[in-house]
């Protein structure tokens, strides 16, 4: 896996060498939230996003291939018979032989590997071992939606809250109290989700009864909102700290002084002028925090007994349902890589300095 990742650099020019059109007015991107922009640059921006995205994905596919190979080989090369791992030590030789045939374990390793990759590419992932009759694909489909909702809302809340707090801490509105916002962000960034999520759940759900208890099947929207808010807190803290640092870099920049001299309000100066220039660090920090977000999502799905990719991984791991486990890990890794490429592409689309 480690050796496979670097070739990604060939297809990862998003940071430096992307041959996008320079000189277009990219100042106000989506962070500017200025709806009335001329048609031309918008279309160009979309093309640039698409191009960066595609080159990124090409490079990142190598990472996914590396992960898939790691999953494959760790189950087959490490000592121990996978069939025994699945069936337990008590299973008879006939049962084991049948399972080995079903999982292609009786073929040479390179044939197994080729078959494994072929099934991944053609999405012919076979059946779940533990639930005969359900395809792996249908189980993945059922788990994908809830996790995607959770992660999407968490990124949305985290990015909004983090940038809002950073702007508050940068702007003149709070006076001396600004420092409190920074302290809050520091404290939130240092507090592990694993420690505060169960405590907050205990206080809000068990003591105050304002939220549904974990595992409540009727939790519905409020359960989703609660879980994604919890997940958004560490992300928002990181976004807030990085944004605050980026805004501090721009604090004395000439373009802000000019905007102020032209009579723009503080809100306009900070939100429309300073913030778009800081979109790069924001997108980057979200990209680097996605891995942690995923780990957090698994913890929260377990805590709230929610359906999702995390709980599917846990379930298939403890049941030793190898086809489901392998497919879920590869899918999760792929989604992670896609989301990260998307973050970098957004960065490239919004900040023309990156595209050059």
């Amino acid at each position, binding site marked *: 896996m480690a050796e496979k990742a*670097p070739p990604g650099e060939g297809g990862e020019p998003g940071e430096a060498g992307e041959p996008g059109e320079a000189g277009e007015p990219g100042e106000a991107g989506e962070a500017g939230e200025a709806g009335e922009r001329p048609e031309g640059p918008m279309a160009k921006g979309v093309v640039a996003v698409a191009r960066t995205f595609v080159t990124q994905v090409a490079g990142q596919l190598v990472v996914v291939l590396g992960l898939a190979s790691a999953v494959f080989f760790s189950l087959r090369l490490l000592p121990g018979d996978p069939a025994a791992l699945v069936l337990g030590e008590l299973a008879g030789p006939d049962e084991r032989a049948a399972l080995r045939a079903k999982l292609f374990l009786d073929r040479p390793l390179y044939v197994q590997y080729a078959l494994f990759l072929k099934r991944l590419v053609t999405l012919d992932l076979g059946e779940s071992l533990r639930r005969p009759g359900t395809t792996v694909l249908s189980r993945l489909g059922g788990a994908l939606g809830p996790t995607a909702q959770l992660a999407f809302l968490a990124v949305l809340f985290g990015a909004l809250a983090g940038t809002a707090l950073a702007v508050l801490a940068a702007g003149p509105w709070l006076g001396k109290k600004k420092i409190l916002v920074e302290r809050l962000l520091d404290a939130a960034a240092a507090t592990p989700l694993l420690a505060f999520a169960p*405590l907050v*759940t205990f206080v809000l759900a068990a003591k105050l009864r304002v939220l549904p208890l*974990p595992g409540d099947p009727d939790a519905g929207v409020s359960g989703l909102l609660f879980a994604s808010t919890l997940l958004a807190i560490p992300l928002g803290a990181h976004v807030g700290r990085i944004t605050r640092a980026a805004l501090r870099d721009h604090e004395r920049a000439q373009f802000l002084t000019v905007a102020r001299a032209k009579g723009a309000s503080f809100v306009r100066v900070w939100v429309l002028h300073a913030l778009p220039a800081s979109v790069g660090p924001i997108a980057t920090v979200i990209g680097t925090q996605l891995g942690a977000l995923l780990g957090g999502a*698994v913890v929260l799905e377990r805590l709230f007994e929610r359906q999702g990719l995390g709980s599917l991984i846990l379930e298939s791991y403890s049941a030793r349902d190898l086809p489901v486990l392998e497919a879920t*890990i590869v899918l*999760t890794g792929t989604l992670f890589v896609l989301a990260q490429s998307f973050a970098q592409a957004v960065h490239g689309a919004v900040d023309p300095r990156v595209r050059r």
Partner: protein
Amino acid sequence: MKMARRAPSLPRGAALVPLAVLVLAAAAARLLGSSAPAALVPENAYDAPSLAHLFGCGEGGVDMLALLSSATLSALALAGGVALFGFAIGTPLGALAAMRRGYVEALVGRTCDALQAFPSFLLALTVLSAVRHPSRLHLACVFALTGWAPFARLALSEARVLRSAGFVEAARALGLGERKILFRHIVPNLLGTVAVQLGASASAVVLSEASLSFVGFGAADGVSLGSALDQGVSAMLRAPHVLVFAALAVFATSTSLLAAGRGIKP
């Protein structure tokens, strides 16, 4: 990261105090306490804190103080070991990459970036899925697999500056071999800066281990902060003290390591 940390006007060693207090308290509780961390006394199950059991009892009547103190100590040992291993491997590797420049430098840099951003949870699962009953050693190996990356990344970017420093050129002009330059001149100058990462890495290992055992992948003996937290969650209504103490232990362990790391000044 970039934020200028307003250095508190505390003495240098003050940052280590929370960690030292935690270790001493856990060790004392472990040595003075009577019950073994996994001893089950079913009639005490989920007892509230009392004089006999200061932190109360958990699932099956385990003494929470004994469980949490030994879980904290083993989490600290695991985290410290993994962080030191990453430090020992990553620093020379990053420095070497910076000295070699070109392809090697790019390769190490990209690998570090990929490993740091990639969800460690998935990697851990991938490796752990091959063993039936993971032990603490398995966990340590899994964390060590990626734990060197942040150290190598830091060492690489620091060594990029150092490699063109005057004293390195002087050493080269005097005819020193690359290896001697690396180990006598570059690496010693990196140690202080790279050591700052130790606390953050160790804290991350504590949290990864606790998360893994919280969701059921932890060491098979069940003595872990995460499995204590899991007990607390499932007994949230009956015995909230289990949850509260377990969450506090996770918080204290990870933040004291973070604080200790900040105390290391280059």
